[in-house]
């Protein structure tokens, strides 16, 4: 997985900069990144290379005006994969190799040469999807635009392969528990962990990604022997999979920020819960405290 991420930044002291990053891996999770940029106020050109793990980043950079530096930054920095980030949520330290001097920051307060200064900054990604798709030969299009092209060409499987969503497109599958046309479903995972995608999953990119995230959760549970089975006395009644379904829904619910604008019906969990409730089987429910947190859009 890699992304090309153009970005624009502003800081009180430094003014406006533009840059571009090439990221391999999952930004904020585990990634390495390279990039460069230009600051309009100072006319400073810079480049950097870094690695991030669990919101902790190390980097080295070279600047036309400041020379070589190396540093560490923690929390929600520009390397964390958020569409918009600010130094209010970071802490870091920086050593300028060329000049042999230390600096650092705690939130928006910077320390340099034993003096503190307030220097808030904000950085925003600009068209990261478009740019990445352009580099991958799909034109300057959003993920939605790319998906629409695949679907218009009847190549849903191509879309799955392009976006790296594991599984097969299967428009023939029907449910045993509700009546609908073949393929009228989002996703399904069989008892061996094979994922299928139905027609509904291709409504838009967010829906496809949400379907993938829900199904990959179940697939991983199956392969790792962690799927949620019913108490033995309730097995074989036709709803053996419902508890795992509920956990899958909860997983999708908690990760909504990754697929904002989806068409998945997360209220569908009520059907499974209602069924298990009749039998007195315990099941999880959606978190209700600070639920908005799960809906905050994020890219990774």
């Amino acid at each position, binding site marked *: 997985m890699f992304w090309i991420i153009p970005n624009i930044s502003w800081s009180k002291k430094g003014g406006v900069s533009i840059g571009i990053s090439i990221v391999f891996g999952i930004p904020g999770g585990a990634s390495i990144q390279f990039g460069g940029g230009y600051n309009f106020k100072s006319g400073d050109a810079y480049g950097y290379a870094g690695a991030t793990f669990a919101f902790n980043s190390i980097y080295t950079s070279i600047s036309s005006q400041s020379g070589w530096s190396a540093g560490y930054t923690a929390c929600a920095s520009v390397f964390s994969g958020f569409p918009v980030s600010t130094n209010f949520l970071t802490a870091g330290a920086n050593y300028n190799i060329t000049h042999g001097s230390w600096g650092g920051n705690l939130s928006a307060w910077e320390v340099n040469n034993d003096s503190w200064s307030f220097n808030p900054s904000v950085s925003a990604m600009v068209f990261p999807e478009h740019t990445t798709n352009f580099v991958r030969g799909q034109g300057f299009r959003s993920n939605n635009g790319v998906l629409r092209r695949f679907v218009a060409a009847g190549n849903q499987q191509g879309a799955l392969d392009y976006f790296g969503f594991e599984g097969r497109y299967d428009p023939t599958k029907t449910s045993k528990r*509700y009546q609908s046309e073949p393929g009228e479903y989002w996703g399904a995972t069989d008892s061996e962990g094979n994922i299928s995608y139905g027609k509904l999953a291709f409504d838009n990119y967010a829906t496809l990604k949400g379907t993938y995230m829900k199904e990959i959760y179940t697939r991983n549970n199956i392969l790792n022997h962690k799927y949620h089975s019913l108490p033995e006395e309730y097995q*074989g009644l036709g709803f053996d999979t419902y508890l795992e379904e509920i956990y899958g829904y909860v997983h999708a619910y908690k990760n909504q920020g990754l697929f904002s604008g989806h068409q998945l019906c997360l209220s569908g969990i009520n059907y499974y819960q209602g069924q298990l*409730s009749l039998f007195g089987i315990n099941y999880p429910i959606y978190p209700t405290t600070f639920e908005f947190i799960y809906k905050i859009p994020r890219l990774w």
Partner: protein
Amino acid sequence: MVKIVVSMLVFLFNLSIHAQNDSLYWELMAIDTPPFYNNNEHGLKNFIQKQIKYPEKALTDSVEGIVIISFWIDTTGYTYTHKIIRGVREDLNDEALRVAKLIKFERPAMQRGKPISVMFTVPIEFKLPRQGKSHRMCK
């Protein structure tokens, strides 16, 4: 007491017959809204309990248990194709089927704003009336 144990054994026997894995797929179902029964599961349970007429023979034999029935809910909320998934014994099964056929949901399940038919499974519990605590203490 012996009969209760016998009925439990029958129940377990039925359990093993019907214990089959008929759902190989974990589906992200295309249901926006589940079928609605007034006061949800509590309302449905209450309705079932009110409708049950305990078969005389089962009362005499002190047999209790849970009959599990599946059915389809159509696009108007009516139920059809009732099937015993797990039974206890014939008279209780028949009574459970009779009660299950009386169930009508107020609203059907919805898929993308349109009603659809869905399958539903209900437990119908036959529980013998219990004697009061004080009565038992007098014994």
